[in-house]
């Protein structure tokens, strides 16, 4: 842990001189873009508002150990960068932000315990940060029972499906159902209409299986086969024979440590005579696209939520975000070019913190008493969009208050010469679906 903390610290201090200039530029752009960003206009040194030195304390539930540790490390850096930025620019409602990190071991049992600890021992105002869906689902009931606002950055469909509770929000990252649905028109239109899907054999994979297949069929395409792969699998050769010969597009999403093996074995199986290949970057998060084992991906396509390479989204806000988090133009840590970020997910930590800021400021939240919490939640549910700018570098988002879920654009990139090059940007419309839940009907 200490090494990570030090590194994060180095990133923060190292980037500060450049930041101010970028900030001025970005601040101007953001001010033009929308009122939400106005509060963040660059004020060089803020005196905390009188009498409100008491910080807003936010429990940061982080996967430092266990299967989610690669993501957790970057989530923590991003959250720290966002908190530092906020503190340099007036904090939240004039109060400093203090992140209180606790490791949940990527384990639902510990996750629930950590939420309890935040609520009753640390006495934080909110809890934020988890990614893995089983941790979210294991922790959410306790957050609801303790009436603790719980902001997740997990991209799972579990929030918008209505299976959680009124205290759980996902305002920083689009859910997987909208993501996969938004991919279908481009895949069917450019790669082929006969699709074989390979997906991990658990809930995250089923969201892909169910919603992508429906979406591609709505585009006039069809699914040739659905191949579920157990999450612990480490060898994939045996699955490729199950791919029907008439497959035009091989769709893969493989969250697991075995992805390099997967790609290598795919290459061994097909050689030069392969179908079109489209995948989700989830399993390649934290992995260098130029790794020797990934050469077979050359010329294939990947979903990205936020382009890893800086030229994929050339905006002031994105440059500012990358600088503050400390990632270079290739999407790796500025301190260690081998340390590749999880850029298609971790921006959610950045954006969520700014949503919290806006909700606190608009609701007049002071402390975690029932009235203030209710006001905060109603304020959140009243949001309908977030403008692109420093708080939202990934782009403009719509927010559905009844579903507690935000929706943004997505990117499709081609692997070219060991890099990712954006070839298509979806619209929010592409991912729209019929709402199945309404949290606002639940009592507070």
């Amino acid at each position, binding site marked *: *842990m200490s090494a990570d903390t030090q590194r994060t610290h180095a990133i923060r201090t190292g980037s500060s001189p450049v930041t101010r200039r970028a900030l001025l530029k970005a601040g101007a752009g953001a001010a033009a873009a929308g009122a939400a960003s106005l509060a963040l206009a660059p004020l060089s040194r803020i005196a905390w508002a009188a009498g409100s030195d008491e910080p807003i304390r936010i429990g940061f539930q982080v996967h*430092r*150990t266990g299967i989610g540790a690669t993501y957790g490390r970057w989530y923590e850096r991003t959250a720290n960068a966002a908190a530092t930025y906020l503190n340099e620019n007036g904090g939240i409602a004039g109060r400093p932000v203090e992140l209180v990190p*606790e*490791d949940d*071991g990527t*384990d*639902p*049992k510990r996750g*629930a*315990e950590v939420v*309890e*600890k935040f*609520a*009753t*021992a640390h006495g934080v105002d909110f809890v934020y940060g988890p990614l893995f*869906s*089983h941790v979210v*689902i*294991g922790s*959410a*009931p*306790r957050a*609801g*029972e303790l009436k603790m606002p719980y902001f997740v950055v997990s991209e799972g469909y*579990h929030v918008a499906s209505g*299976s*959680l*509770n009124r205290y759980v929000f996902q305002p920083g990252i689009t859910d997987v159902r909208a993501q996969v649905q938004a991919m279908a028109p481009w895949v069917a239109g450019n790669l082929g209409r006969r699709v074989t899907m390979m997906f991990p*054999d*658990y*809930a*995250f994979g089923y969201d892909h299986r169910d919603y992508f297949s429906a979406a591609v069929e709505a585009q006039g395409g069809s699914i040739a086969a659905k191949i579920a792969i*157990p*999450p612990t699998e480490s060898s994939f050769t045996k699955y490729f024979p199950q791919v029907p010969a008439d497959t035009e597009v091989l769709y893969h999403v493989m969250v697991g440590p075995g992805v390099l093996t997967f790609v290598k074995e795919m290459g061994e199986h097909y050689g030069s005579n392969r179908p079109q290949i489209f995948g989700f970057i989830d399993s390649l998060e934290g992995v260098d696209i130029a790794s020797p084992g990934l050469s077979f991906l050359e010329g294939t396509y990947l979903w990205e939520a936020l382009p890893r390479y800086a030229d994929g989204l050339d905006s002031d806000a994105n440059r500012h975000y990358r600088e503050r988090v400390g990632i270079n133009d290739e999407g790796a840590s500025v301190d260690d070019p081998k340390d590749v970020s999880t850029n298609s997910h971790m921006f959610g930590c950045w954006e969520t913190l700014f949503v919290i800021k806006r909700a606190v400021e608009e609701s007049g939240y002071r402390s975690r008493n029932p009235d203030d919490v209710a006001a905060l939640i109603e304020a959140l549910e009243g949001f309908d969009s977030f403008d692109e700018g420093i708080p939202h570098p990934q782009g403009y988002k719509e927010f559905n208050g009844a579903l507690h879920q935000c929706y943004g654009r997505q990117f499709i990139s081609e692997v070219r010469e060991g890099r990712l090059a954006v070839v298509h940007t979806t619209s929010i419309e592409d991912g729209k679906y019929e709402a199945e839940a309404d949290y606002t009907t639940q009592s507070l």
Partner: protein
Amino acid sequence: MKGGPGARVLALHLGLIAALFAAQFVLGAYHHTNLARIMVLATYAVGYNLLLGYTGLMSLGHAMFFAAGMYGAGLSIYYLGFGAIPGFALGVACALGLALAFGAFALRTSGVSFLIVTMMFGQAFYLTILYFNQVTFGDQGFILSDRLPAALVDPDVKYNAALLVFAACFLASAFLVRSPFGRILVAIRENEARARLLGYDTYTCKLVVLTLSGGMSGAAGAAYALLFSYVGASFAAILNSIYPLLWTLLGGAGTTLGPVLGTGLMFYLVDFTSGWTSAYLFVVGGALLVLVLFFPLGVMGTVRAKLAPWIP
């Protein structure tokens, strides 16, 4: 159980339960929720200790019984609309049934083979939960909140429900180990061949105690599902089989109080160390090594050896 030691033993056990009951009125919110959780987990350790501490059988697959209780309760509530109490009862029944069936052939082996077999079947049970993920929701698990009585949200109800389950299993185990049957178990632990020679049907005795142990573990699992309203496959994973071993050894295997103490100590050790390191596996691994090397009797075992030989 009248007379000197009997009365003291009774007083000790009832005193612990009374202390736990009283604790809810003085503890702050944080320790209040922690203690509720510790009591549920301690129930698991108490069940485990029956097997390890009193019969000398070490299991590395007890998570399957915990999970059987958890899923028996969880699935019946989720799909069949069972209430909390019938769900709990079904969970315990599932664990009892699984333990009986598993014991029937696993107990054909002994010593190290038994250990390996428990570990493998624990893992097979875990994989089975993943395999039937359309029903069990696999890794991700599912939530029971909106299907449970609203009263269960109340921390006091949680606490006292946990206390009730714990007290029942704790007293049952204390009674059992002091009964003639408990003496046979200890005889098996000390020398199974001799116990057999004396005419005891050791296979049946072991089967009975394994079933009871599994049932208590299942009660803990079912209670966990009800009180913390989450059911997930990670509770069937190997680490969850190692925990009761660790708790029991820490507190003192073969003492009735040991597992409870061990569970509480370990919980707070992990919780405390999380403040300055996330390397909690060092804590778990280090604790196991230290116990084996320097502290083989555990806390209560040492107390019994040095201070109070009368405690059971």
